[in-house]
């Protein structure tokens, strides 16, 4: 009995290690294959349109992973993560144009500037925690959004958006014919982001953050500074987002103000929560699902048969964000733990590790500072 359990556990460990590797290899080969997934993908996998969509999904998955560091690991509900994504995209373009630098040195400049920028804003935002933190990050991102739209100094292109200065970018990363290369770049970025996220989560800071989320008081008693740990995670998440912003700039040959907006951060929140808070695979899955669903729903909104429906049905069906928003509300209310939590729950109560309700529990842990309200516990 026990040997068979050991064998199956060993097999699971192998599968756990091989599955991601196989997935990456498969994804890397997609541009060379002629696969069709009708209803999910707009065309065969080698076509530029499909590759672009998949690349976008991977960039968003990487961005969702960085958001997972904030929400799932450090327990920080940020409404301003888009600011860093937009920072990466816009600043890369600006640095290349204004300083006339090539792509690689520009990337280094942006990453360094981004580390300083996020440390500064993080240090201010983390003066407060919980819901006030959410509001403050929202306000900073809003300021960034206003700045981008106002376009001081004519560098961001205002509402029109900014064009990628292609003259400073290697030819291999420019143009529709080279979507493949951009696809591989996005895949590499996702793998890197996954690795970085895992590394941060397993680092000392990640462990302390976990402990802080569960019981800040105890960590303080042990003499550690929750502030510094949260700041470290905040900066790590921001820098990853900045990196993804740069990939996004290349992928879309430009940047639009939407990527700095509060709605953009909220879409990240949707991805991570639908996927399952606290799970890396959940964040990736949630992002991919979101991007594909958004694309399919946009197609649906333009479908002939939808236009012929009575207004009561036509209006909701032709608004992808209405459907996604509703889906999100349903997940929050009826699927605690999101997709990842549901998978764990379905996969078996036989396994005790992990715990099916982990996502929901994580959200509750974040409430700890609120629980000071219970009678007798709080004020001195």
């Amino acid at each position, binding site marked *: 009995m026990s040997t068979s359990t050991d064998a199956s556990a060993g097999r699971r460990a192998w599968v756990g290690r091989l599955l991601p590797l196989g997935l990456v290899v498969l994804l890397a080969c997609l541009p060379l294959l002629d696969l069709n997934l009708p209803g999910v993908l707009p065309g065969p996998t080698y076509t530029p349109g499909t590759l672009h969509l998949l690349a976008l999904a991977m960039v968003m998955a990487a961005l969702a992973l960085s958001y997972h560091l904030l929400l799932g690991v450090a327990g920080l509900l940020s409404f301003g993560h888009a600011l860093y994504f937009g920072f990466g995209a816009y600043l890369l373009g600006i640095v290349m144009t204004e300083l006339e630098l090539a792509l690689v040195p520009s990337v280094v400049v942006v990453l360094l500037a981004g580390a300083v920028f996020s440390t500064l804003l993080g240090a201010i935002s983390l003066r407060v925690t919980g819901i006030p933190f959410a509001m403050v990050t929202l306000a900073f991102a809003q300021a960034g959004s206003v700045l981008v739209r106002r376009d001081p100094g004519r560098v961001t292109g205002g509402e029109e958006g900014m064009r990628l200065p292609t003259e400073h970018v290697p030819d291999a990363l420019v143009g529709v014919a080279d979507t493949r290369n951009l696809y591989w770049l996005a895949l590499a970025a996702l793998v890197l982001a996954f690795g970085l996220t895992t590394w941060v989560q397993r680092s000392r800071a990640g462990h302390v953050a976990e402990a802080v989320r569960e019981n800040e008081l105890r960590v303080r008693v042990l003499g550690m500074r929750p502030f510094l740990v949260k700041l470290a995670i905040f900066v790590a998440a921001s820098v990853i987002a900045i990196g993804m912003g740069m990939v996004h700039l290349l992928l879309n040959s430009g940047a639009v103000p939407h990527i700095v907006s509060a709605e953009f951060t909220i879409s990240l929140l949707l991805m991570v929560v639908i996927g399952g808070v606290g799970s890396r695979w959940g964040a990736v899955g949630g992002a991919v699902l979101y991007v594909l669903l958004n694309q399919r729903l946009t197609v649906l909104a333009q479908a002939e048969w939808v236009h012929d429906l009575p207004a009561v049905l036509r209006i909701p069906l032709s608004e992808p964000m209405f459907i996604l928003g509703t889906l999100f509300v349903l997940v929050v209310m009826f699927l605690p733990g999101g997709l990842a939590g549901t998978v764990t729950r379905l996969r078996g109560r036989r396994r005790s590790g992990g715990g099916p309700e982990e996502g929901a529990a994580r959200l*509750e842990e974040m409430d700890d500072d609120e*629980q000071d309200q*219970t009678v007798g516990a*709080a004020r001195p």
Partner: protein
Amino acid sequence: MTSTQPRGDVAVDGAPAGDPVLRVRGLSAHVAGQQVVEHVDLDVAPVGVTALLGRNGVGKTSTIKAVLGLIGRSGTVELDGADLVHLPTHQIVQRGVGYVPEDREVFSGLTVTDNLRLAERRGSRHRYDLVYDLFPELQERGAQAAGTLSGGQQQMVSLARALLNDNQVLLVDEPTKGLAPRLVQEVSRVLARAAQVAPILLVEQNLQVVRDLAQHAVVLTDGRSVHHGPAADFLADDALTQRLLGVHAEGGGEPTDGGSGHTGEERA
């Protein structure tokens, strides 16, 4: 004689005849995912004062909060034979449970009068005569914001809020904490009078107060009830009080901290 676990309908040692008004069995409770009460059995006798004793941090306050549903809990909590454990706090209180929390918890932004008016429960008499008879000062200071009162006066407001209504049982958590000796006697006198109206479950560190008021004692250690019996017998047993409370009861002093970790009630 010691460490009697009440089970089923077996009367607790030293409890007078009659069913307990509040019967707690196998109570456990948690705060923010941490277990703060492991397994508590206790009976509150239908008359008089039952003391809930133990070192700091063993879960006395958490037990009271768990009875009220202020923290997540499981087990059996019966008031007059009816199970309360699935009810929300306000319904438990409406069934006749008065609560005087540790640290008084008056609404500091509201006036004294408003604090009392807020406590008026529907379907109950409101005994302003009793309350103002016990605490004439509250009538004089009715228009004052409760937050500007002294600690002793705030304790009066807190006691008055509970005594205003008809109660089946009063849960009183460390009413003399931080008060001057004169005020401790005052509170003790008020509780003696209150106990004539409704039975009391009293958490109290001052053993002199316990000696004066309590007929029965329940002692907790590490979130578990480990002793039930007549209060006088318990306090007379020097070895037992030393072991369970860390004090010589004859000294009448404050128990020393047992150092059993954070159990919610020492978060400050």
